[in-house]
C-alpha cells in the first residue's frame, strides 16, 4: 500500500505539472483540445491524490508501523476513529490532507464550470494546479508520509525496522472536537484558494468585470463558514480541555487562523460594493490576495517554528519552502494587479460619510487594522530580533487594547451599515431607522451602569498609567467599561436586526395574508442573502455578548480536604470525595464536588487529573456547570504532597454559553445566505426589486 501511495503521489506530481503546461500552452495557441486536456488533468490530479490519501488511511487502519509517520502518531489500541483522525495528527499527514482538499476543490471548480467562462477557466485551472504542484512537491520531496523506519547497523547498513507498537496519538488530540477541528480548518483555509484563483485568472484574462466575484461568491462564503467554525471549535476545545478557564489566549496558532478570517470578512462585505456600485475594484483584488496569502502564512506560521507557541508543530525545514512560496505568490499577484490597474477603474465615487459605501469602507479599514495589529503582535519577536537583535514578545494586553475598541466599532457598523442608503443617507431616514434602536440601547446601558457595570475606577496617583491621556483622565478604561460599551452596541444591533424582520414580515403578511411566522420564513427565503446576513449579524451579536462576559470572570483556588467548602459568588462548592482511579490507559486523581447555588444543590462535578501511561503525559479533565447566565468551571490542579488535600481551582465565567450559541446562529445565517432565493409566485413587486433579483439569478447560473 505504501508503494501504491508513493506511486500515486509521483503520478499526481506529473499530472499536475502537465495540467498547468497544457492549460497555458492551450491558451497561448488557442488550442481547445489542449485546454480541455489540461482541465481533465486537474480532475486526474484529484484521483491521484485521493488514491494517495486512501493509501495512507489504510496504513493507519491496519497499523502498519514500518511506516515512520504511522508509528509516530498511532498505536494498536487506539480506537478506529482516532486512528483515522491520526492521519492529520502530524506534519506530513496534515500537509497531505491540505493538498488533498485542494485537489477536491479544484476538481469541483472545473466540473462546476465545465463549459462556462471559457476565457477565464483555463487560467483558473493553471493557478489552482500551480498551488497544487507546490503541495504535491512538498509531499513528495520534503514531508513524505510514506518514509519507512530503518535502523543503522554498526556497519553503516540501513535495515528496515518495525516497532512492536506505535507511539500513540498525543492525548490532547484524543478528543472528538480536536479530531474534527483540523479538517474543518483546512476546508476553510484551502477554500480561499478558489476565489484567489478566479481573481488572478480575471486579471490574466483581462476579464475584469464582476464575473469572478459572482462566480466565487458562494465559494468565498463556504470557505469563510468553515474557517469561522474551525476557529470557534478550537476555542471550544481549548475551553473544555486545556483547563485555564478561557477560550482565546492570543497564541500565535490562534492568531494564524484569525488573520485570514479578518481579511476574508472584509472581502466578503467589500465585494457587495463592487457588485452594486462598481467601486473598490482594486481594493477587492488586494483583499482576496491578502486573504489567500494569510491562509498560507498561517499554515507557514504553525509549521515552521518561527514563533514559539504552545501548539506549534515541530520545527522543520518546511518553513523555508513556504516562505519562498509566499514571496512568489504575493509578488506575482501584486505585480499583475499593478499591471492591470487601468482595467480596474472605479465607476463611482464616495459621496457622503453617512452612506452604505462609506460604512463598508470603514468596515474594511478597521478589519484590516485588526489584522495588522494581530500580525504585528504575533510577529513582533521576529521583527524586533531582526531590527534590534532582541526578541521582544507582546501578550494579551497588547492584543486586547487594540482589538477590543475595534470590535466595538465594528459591531456598531454592523448595526448601522445595512440600513444606510447607498450614496447618501438622509437625516430623516437616519431618524426613522436608528432612533428606537439607539434609545433602547442607551436605556439598557443606563440600566447596566446603575447596576455597577462599566464604572470607571479612580486610581491612586501612583497607579495611574504613564501615558498623558491616562494622567489627564485619572482613571484607566477598565475592561468593565469596554464590556458596557460592547453590551450597548450589542443591544443596538440586535434591535435593528429584529426590527428589520418585524417590519418586513408585517408588510408581507398584510399583503399576502400569511401569519407572522410564515411571513418571516418566506421573507427570508425570498431574499436569502439579505436576511441570512441579518441572522449572521445577530449571531455575531450573541457571540459578542458572550465575549463581553469575559470582563467579569473571577477565579479562586484553594486547598481543600473532604468536607471543605469553597465560596464563589452565589455558589458554594463542597468537596465530597477525593480518590484515585486506575485504568489500563491512564491513572487519575479525582474529586467529587457538590455545587450549591444560593444554598440549593444544583450539580455534582468531577474534576480530574489523568496521567496517560503510554506517554506519561498528564491531562486536566475540567468539569463545567454551564448555564445561560454563567459557567462554573472546576479544575483539579493537583494534590498536596500528603495526599489529603486537593488543589481545586474554580473559575466563574459569565455568559460564555452565548459564545457557542452565537457561533451556531452565525453559521446558520451563513447557510441561509448560501441558499438560492425562492421565486415569487404571484405577487407584484416594484421594479427595482425585480431587477435586483434577476441579477441574483444571473449570478447563480
Amino acid at each position: 500500500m505504501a508503494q501504491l501511495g508513493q506511486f500515486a503521489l509521483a503520478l499526481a506530481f506529473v499530472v499536475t505539472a502537465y495540467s498547468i503546461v497544457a492549460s497555458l500552452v492551450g491558451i497561448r495557441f488557442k488550442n481547445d483540445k489542449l485546454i480541455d486536456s489540461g482541465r481533465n488533468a486537474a480532475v486526474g490530479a484529484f484521483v491521484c491524490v485521493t488514491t494517495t490519501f486512501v493509501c495512507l488511511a489504510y496504513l493507519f487502519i491496519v497499523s502498519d508501523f514500518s511506516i515512520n509517520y504511522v508509528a509516530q502518531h498511532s498505536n494498536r489500541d487506539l480506537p478506529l476513529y482516532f486512528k483515522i483522525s491520526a492521519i492529520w495528527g502530524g506534519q506530513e499527514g496534515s500537509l497531505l490532507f491540505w493538498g488533498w482538499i485542494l485537489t477536491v476543490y479544484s476538481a469541483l471548480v472545473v466540473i462546476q464550470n465545465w463549459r462556462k467562462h471559457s476565457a477565464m477557466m483555463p487560467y483558473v485551472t493553471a493557478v489552482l494546479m500551480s498551488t497544487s504542484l507546490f503541495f504535491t512537491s512538498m509531499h513528495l520531496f520534503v514531508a513524505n508520509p510514506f518514509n519507512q523506519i530503518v535502523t543503522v547497523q554498526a556497519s553503516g547498513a540501513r535495515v528496515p525496522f518495525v516497532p512492536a507498537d506505535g507511539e500513540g496519538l498525543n492525548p490532547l488530540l484524543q478528543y472528538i472536537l480536536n479530531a474534527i477541528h483540523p479538517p474543518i480548518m483546512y476546508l476553510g483555509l484551502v477554500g480561499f484558494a478558489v476565489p484567489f484563483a478566479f481573481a488572478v485568472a480575471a486579471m490574466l484574462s483581462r476579464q475584469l468585470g464582476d464575473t469572478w466575484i459572482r462566480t466565487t461568491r458562494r465559494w468565498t462564503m463556504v470557505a469563510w463558514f468553515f474557517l469561522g467554525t474551525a476557529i470557534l471549535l478550537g476555542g471550544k476545545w481549548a475551553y473544555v480541555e486545556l483547563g485555564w478557564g478561557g477560550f482565546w489566549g492570543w497564541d500565535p496558532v490562534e492568531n494564524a487562523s484569525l488573520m485570514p478570517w479578518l481579511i476574508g470578512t472584509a472581502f466578503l462585505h467589500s465585494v457587495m460594493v463592487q457588485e452594486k456600485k462598481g467601486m473598490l475594484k482594486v481594493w477587492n483584488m488586494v483583499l482576496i490576495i491578502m486573504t489567500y496569502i494569510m491562509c498560507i502564512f498561517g499554515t507557514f506560521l504553525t509549521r515552521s517554528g518561527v514563533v514559539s507557541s504552545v501548539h506549534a508543530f515541530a520545527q522543520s525545514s518546511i518553513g523555508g519552502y513556504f516562505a519562498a512560496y509566499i514571496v512568489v505568490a504575493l509578488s506575482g499577484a501584486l505585480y499583475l494587479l499593478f499591471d492591470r490597474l487601468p482595467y480596474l477603474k472605479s465607476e463611482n465615487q464616495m459621496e457622503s460619510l453617512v452612506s452604505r459605501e462609506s460604512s463598508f469602507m470603514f468596515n474594511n479599514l478597521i478589519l484590516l487594522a485588526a489584522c495588522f495589529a494581530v500580525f504585528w503582535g504575533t510577529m513582533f519577536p521576529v521583527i524586533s530580533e531582526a531590527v534590534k537583535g532582541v526578541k521582544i514578545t507582546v501578550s494579551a494586553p497588547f492584543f486586547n487594547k487594540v482589538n477590543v475598541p475595534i470590535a466595538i466599532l465594528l459591531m456598531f457598523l454592523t448595526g448601522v451599515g445595512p440600513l444606510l442608503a447607498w450614496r447618501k443617507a438622509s437625516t430623516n431616514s437616519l431618524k426613522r431607522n436608528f432612533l428606537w434602536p439607539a434609545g433602547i440601547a442607551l436605556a439598557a446601558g443606563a440600566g447596566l451602569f446603575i447596576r455597577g457595570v462599566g464604572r470607571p475606577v479612580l486610581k491612586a496617583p501612583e497607579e495611574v498609567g504613564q501615558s498623558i491621556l491616562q494622567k489627564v483622565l485619572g482613571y484607566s478604561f477598565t475592561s468593565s467599561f469596554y464590556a458596557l460599551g460592547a453590551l450597548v452596541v450589542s443591544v443596538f444591533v440586535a434591535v435593528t436586526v429584529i426590527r428589520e424582520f418585524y417590519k418586513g414580515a408585517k408588510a408581507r403578511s398584510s399583503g399576502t395574508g400569511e401569519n407572522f411566522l410564515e411571513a418571516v420564513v418566506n421573507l427570508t427565503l425570498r431574499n436569502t442573502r439579505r436576511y441570512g446576513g441579518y441572522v449572521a449579524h445577530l449571531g455575531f451579536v450573541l457571540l459578542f455578548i458572550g465575549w463581553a462576559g469575559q470582563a467579569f470572570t473571577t477565579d479562586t483556588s484553594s486547598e481543600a480536604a473532604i468536607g471543605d467548602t469553597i465560596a464563589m459568588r452565589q455558589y458554594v462548592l463542597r468537596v465530597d470525595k477525593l480518590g484515585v482511579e486506575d485504568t489500563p490507559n491512564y491513572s487519575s486523581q479525582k474529586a467529587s464536588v457538590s455545587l450549591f447555588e444560593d444554598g440549593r444543590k444544583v450539580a455534582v462535578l468531577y474534576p480530574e487529573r489523568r496521567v496517560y501511561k503510554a506517554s506519561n503525559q498528564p491531562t486536566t479533565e475540567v468539569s463545567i456547570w454551564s448555564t445561560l447566565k454563567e459557567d462554573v468551571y472546576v479544575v483539579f490542579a493537583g494534590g498536596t504532597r500528603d495526599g489529603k488535600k486537593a488543589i481545586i481551582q474554580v473559575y466563574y465565567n459569565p455568559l460564555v454559553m452565548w459564545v457557542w450559541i452565537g457561533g451556531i446562529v452565525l453559521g446558520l445565517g451563513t447557510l441561509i445566505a448560501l441558499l438560492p432565493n425562492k421565486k415569487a409566485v404571484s405577487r407584484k413587486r416594484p421594479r427595482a426589486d425585480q431587477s435586483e433579483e434577476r441579477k441574483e439569478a444571473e449570478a447563480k447560473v
Partner: protein
Amino acid sequence: MKRKQLKFLVGSLVIVLTLAYLGFSGYQESKAYYQTVTELYASKEKAYERRLKVAGDVVPGSIQREGKVINFVISQEDQQTKKVQTLAVQYVGTDAPPDTFVDRAQAVVEGKLGQDGVFVANKMQAKCASKYEKESAAGVKRNGAE
C-alpha cells in the same frame, strides 16, 4: 469633490492614530524580553529591570509545590561552551500550570528576576520534551525524520 475626500481621509486617520496609540500603550504594558538562561545572565544588571520570558528545560526532580506556589529549576546548555546554566523559578501565577509541565519539559516562564536570583514568574507555558530525542537516545535512527 476634494473636500469630501478630505473628510474620509481625516476620519480614517483619526481611527488609525487612535488604534496606533492604543497599540503602543498595550505594547508598553505587555512587552517582555524573550531570552535563554545564558542570555539572561549575560544581560547582567538590565535583567532585574525588564519583564522577561525565559525558556529552559525543567530539571528532573526539581518541581516542588508549596500550596499554590511552585518552585522548580530550569536549565539550559550553552551551545558553544557546553556549560549548563540553571535558573531557580518561583511560579506564583493564578492559573494552574499546564498539563505539559513535567520533568524535562521545555518551560517558558514570564515574570521578573528578583535580587536574590530567583525568577518570579506569573505566567508559564510548557511543551513536552520532543519524542525524537527519546528515540535517538535509544539508538533508533529514522529515515527522513530529521
